């Protein structure tokens, strides 16, 4: 009589595990629109980081021998009324957009996670007060509030940065372009943290009541381990999706502020400001207003596609 076969514990029986993120990435690149969004986005990031170093021109240098030129081999998008190479200006605008987009997203997500988690954990009147604050901020016309805060922050931040430069001797702080950046960061971050806070609060409240967290607690898993292994990965998906989708609207808001003349000031480069600068010559040189506008739209559109793709990749249930 043959002996009963022993269960083979060797590796060949083990199911190959896939990590959450590897799985999500595989789902992301399977979607054509998400892949398109991702490629455009990566191109944009590459251009923003390395573009200015690769360009033979300086985005601020005025060439008085090459004013208002049409598109040519030397200047693919022509030059503007000050003789600056327009393609280089567009790339500098990409750097501004990336810079503002990344920093404001970090600020918004940071504030949102902190405030949302505080509300969820402390509960009671603090929760009520925080959520009521979110509701109140959201009842403002988003952009109007950003405009107002931007105008308000300008003087105090300029004073603060000039003082900082004097105290510390860091002369680079005392630079109008950096001051504009900080003002825009502040205005957009203050307007936009609300939805993230609400999302995080909802996520934490609903996750804490779920069976898998309860069973983890019941089997004696330590709280930090629950937070890192179970709470965070599950709460992070929706936050990443919201942040990516928010990235597009932040880039849009920066351009809108600069379009009104209160965001990034000349000679700093912003797509919105370029449209304003060249709106006077739209009949003669329409490409000077069309190119920044179309570039801006493509980036916003790529960010939205990427956000949708991430949503499908990180929340597979939402597709049904």
């Amino acid at each position, binding site marked *: 009589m043959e002996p009963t076969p022993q269960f083979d514990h060797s590796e060949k029986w083990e199911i190959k595990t896939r990590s959450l993120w590897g799985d999500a990435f595989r789902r992301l690149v399977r979607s054509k629109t998400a892949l398109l969004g991702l490629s455009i986005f990566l191109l944009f990031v590459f251009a923003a980081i390395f573009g200015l170093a690769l360009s033979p021109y300086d985005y601020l240098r005025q060439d008085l021998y090459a004013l208002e030129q049409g598109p040519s081999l030397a200047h693919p998008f022509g030059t503007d009324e000050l003789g600056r190479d327009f393609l280089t200006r567009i790339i500098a605008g990409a750097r501004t957009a990336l810079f503002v987009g990344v920093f404001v997203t970090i600020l918004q997500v940071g504030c949102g996670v902190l405030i949302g988690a505080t509300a969820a954990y402390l509960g009671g009147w603090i929760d009520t007060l925080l959520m009521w604050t979110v509701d*109140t901020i959201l*009842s*403002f016309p988003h*952009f109007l*509030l950003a405009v107002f805060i931007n105008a*308000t922050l300008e003087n*105090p931040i300029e004073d603060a940065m000039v003082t900082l430069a004097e105290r510390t001797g860091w002369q680079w702080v005392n630079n109008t372009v950096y001051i504009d950046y900080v003002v825009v960061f502040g205005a957009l971050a203050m307007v936009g943290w609300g939805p993230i806070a609400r999302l995080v609060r909802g996520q934490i409240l609903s996750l804490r009541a779920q069976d898998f967290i309860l069973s983890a607690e019941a089997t004696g898993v330590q709280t930090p381990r629950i937070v890192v292994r179970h709470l965070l990965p599950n709460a992070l998906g929706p936050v990443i999706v919201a942040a990516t989708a928010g990235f597009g609207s932040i880039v849009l808001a920066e351009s809108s502020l600069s*379009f009104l003349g209160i965001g990034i000031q000349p000679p700093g480069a912003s797509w919105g400001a370029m449209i304003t600068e060249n709106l006077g010559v739209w009949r003669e040189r329409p490409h000077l207003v069309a190119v920044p506008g179309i570039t*801006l739209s493509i980036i*916003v559109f790529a960010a939205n596609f990427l956000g949708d793709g991430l949503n499908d990749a990180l929340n597979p249930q939402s597709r049904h």
Partner: protein
Amino acid sequence: MTLYLVRRLLVFIPTFMAITLITYTLGFYGPGDPVRIRLGENWHDEEAYLALKHELGLDRPFTEQFADYLWAVLQGDFGESIYRSDLQVGEAMANTLPVSATLAFASSLVIILVGIPLGLIAALKHNTWIDYLLVSITVLGSSIPVFVLAPIFMIVLVLKLNLIDKIYGWEGLFSQKIIMPALILAFGPLLGVMRLTRQGVLEVLNQDYVRTARAKGLSGWVVAIRHVLRNAITPLLTNMGLVVAFLITGSILLESIFGIPGFGSLIVRSLRQRDYPILMGTTIIGASIIMVANLIVDIVYVYIDPRVSYN
């Protein structure tokens, strides 16, 4: 229902006060000194400065000044412009709001008359090339802001096609000049309305009562309009607040391009001059318009969809 209305209106009051408080705080700590601006050439005269500051009541504590402002605002008095003491902020807003409202009305007509039919067509022709075309336009178009659309529309309609020649200025609802800004302002919300209509219709299309209506021999269009559209349109209504917010934001960006003397132009002008009393007034009014729009949506919702009740 009455109870719901009363409760809804009661929530309105603290929110309005909070909005006024936030706006006032920003206006209070943000800008340069209004007293020095009023003094003009004598700005360095310390004695006159203190006297004027006292006269304007600006040396009192913040809470007292805020209470005064809130009380005045509730009575419709938003103070006067920093630069022109004869320019009442309330009056300036009352003069410009009708212009923006007219423009918003023209845009709303375009949104409703084009957006809903297109959404209906896309849903009825589900999974045909018409549907795909309309959906791709929605996906691509909705990320284009008005200040990008404006030059693109100008280049295409004026330079390339020569359809319109007069685009700057304002001559009221019945003039050629309103066409371009109204179309541009309508573009984004129109795509949103189209998408929502398409979604709503697709959801309703498979319901039993639609099958019944078809089975008893009603023609396709009667079913589509009387039975499908009526039920599919409720989700549109919940998004009315968003559309109103979009129209306000759009008017800020658009009106100065076309030289329209509306609410948006007033905001941009006072922004360039850092005229804070006007900026504060317009921010409070802008937020109030959106709150009222949301309130109206909540009330109308009950009448359109009897399944919703607020008890």
